[in-house]
């Protein structure tokens, strides 16, 4: 485990940066983006192994960003983050190409497992 490049996309900066730090402590390399445009630019530049993408974002929504990612970088696994109970959106995301979805608040161990599984897929 470890050594993957993970891109975190969430409009909640505190969440994204803190989660990034935790992932780094677990040996991951991280890139953070706080909206869809920034995420797409970083995607081209940094070429992450896996993208963790929040669905509820102002401007471009997570699902729109997901659509772009599957166009620009097909094959990059995307793990969606949904609010509690928004199972439908998670399932919708999986239908258009997301690897899996997780509900916020997260459990770090679960996220780590998902990341590892997604990259090794």
């Amino acid at each position, binding site marked *: 485990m470890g050594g993957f490049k993970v891109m975190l996309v969430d409009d*909640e900066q*505190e*969440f994204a940066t*803190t*989660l990034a*730090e*935790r992932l780094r*402590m*677990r040996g991951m390399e991280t890139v953070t983006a706080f909206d869809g445009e920034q995420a797409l630019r970083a995607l081209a530049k940094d070429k992450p192994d896996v993208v963790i993408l929040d669905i*509820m974002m102002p401007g471009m929504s997570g699902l729109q960003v997901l659509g772009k990612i599957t166009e620009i970088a097909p094959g990059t696994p995307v793990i969606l983050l949904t*609010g*509690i*109970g*928004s199972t439908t959106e998670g399932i919708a995301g999986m239908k258009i190409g997301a690897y899996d979805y997780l509900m*916020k*608040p*997260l459990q*770090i161990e679960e996220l780590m497992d998902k990341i590892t599984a997604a990259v090794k897929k």
Partner: protein
Amino acid sequence: MNLMQSISQIFSRLTEVPDQENSPFRYKIVRRNVAILMLLITLAPLSLMTIINYYEYRSVLRDEIVRPQRVLVNKAKHSIELFLANRLATVNFIASAYSYDELADESNLNRIFRVLKREFEGFVDLGLIDSAGFQVSYAGPYSLKGKDYSEQSWFENVQVNGAYVSEVFKGYRRFPHIALAVHHLPENGKPWVVRATINTAKLDELIASMGLDAESDAFLVNREGVLQTNSKYYGQALDRCPCIPSVSYEPTVVERVDPRGRSVMVTYCYFPNADFIFMLIKPQAQVMKAWYTLKADLFIVFAISVGLIVAVVLRLTKSMFDKMKEADDKRALALKEMEHSHKLSSIGRLAAGVAHEINNPLAVINEKAGLMKDLIEFTPGFPDKDRFLGPVGAIIGSVERCRTITHRLLGFARRMDVEIQVLDVNDVIKETVGFLEKEALYRNIKLNLNFARELPKIESDRGQLQQVFLNVLNNAFQAMEDGGTVSVATFERDEATIGVTIQDTGHGMSEDTMKHIFEPFFTTKASGKGTGLGLSITYGLVKRLGGDVEVQSKVGKGTRFTVYLPRKHQDSQGS
């Protein structure tokens, strides 16, 4: 004008519908008013018609009855007058045709008297009286010759009026008779008076010839009320008859109560030329027999009509207002239910909003606390490691609790996709109870399962049913001290519905609590221990599945929830 106003006022008062929607008297008042109004507009004309008919018929019938009596009385009076006039004319003829000397001769007078008796019925005697009032000659059964009449009033009367008809009297004789006297004034010489008496038998005969019926009575009476002929009811001739009507020379009808206490109809007529009143008496009961029959008929018809109208009006208004009340009640109930579900759905939307808003900061807290935990764990030789890990763990635990709450909130608010399958409710309950078996064992709670055999399978959603039963069972568990009993039973309520009862021996609920238990966030648990969402979610789920929940509870005895579920799923219940 005033009358019209007050009538229209009464009508508008009666037709007014009171506004207070919820007044329990409203229907009663309206129903009463409508009934009164209907009765008024039907009974008033009916009563009026009956009263008019009553008086009209009575007057018509009375005329019918009275007219022949008048005619009869007139005729009888006429015959009597004619009889008396005839006899008087005869006496007058004798007085004029013979001279004083001829009449003074007793044998002559006897001869005249014999002829008189033969030709004219009823003569009793005949006599000549000179101007001094002295009986000169006499022919008849008594010996009255030489009697002095000068002091008697009739003698004076005849001298003044020329003729005189006495009332009936006994005089010197023992039987009733009438005296006729004629005053004759020759061209030269002294005037004289011829006096004859007739018996009253002829009068009785005349009255008898009227052909009266058995109940009726007819007689002559004088103005002092002394009977002149025999009466059937009021005595013999010369007895006193107390009922003397007011003077009228035309046949007149009056209604009286006679001395014997009977109500009678009296037809009478005064004689203009003599001191007589002819009276015909008929008992009212007999006269008005036809009227009484008619009156009874009229009354019966009226009473039956009134009875029918009242019955119909009361029945009609009752059924009308029962229907109206039923419709209103239904409407009110529907409104209440709509209000309730509206309330639930708006609270649900609010809850969903709150859950979403809280979720993000919650995620941040989670990560921050996680990071702290990571730092503590990943830093080798972190001082007081355990003292830090404790609070951090508590923060993460609390976040987890919040997560559960928001999850439930959303579960309440979310539109869930119903997945319908044919299932056995007994199985679903068995599965659900399985979740709680550990807790039951631990708390020494007895679980009684009483499943109906052959319970029909229903079309429903397994997951949601489990949620429903779990919620209710959880509530039951929480309502009880350790060692209680929860009884679950299933039954077939009717062809279309099955029921599940879940009864606990817990502390029960007050009426007030029962009213609110299906509302979101209503909880009786200590703050922080319950979300108040369990039963509202249950209610929403059961409603969505087309069923219903009933709750019965007694403080201190326990609570019974009954869940009714339809056997067939209906799509209209999809939301």
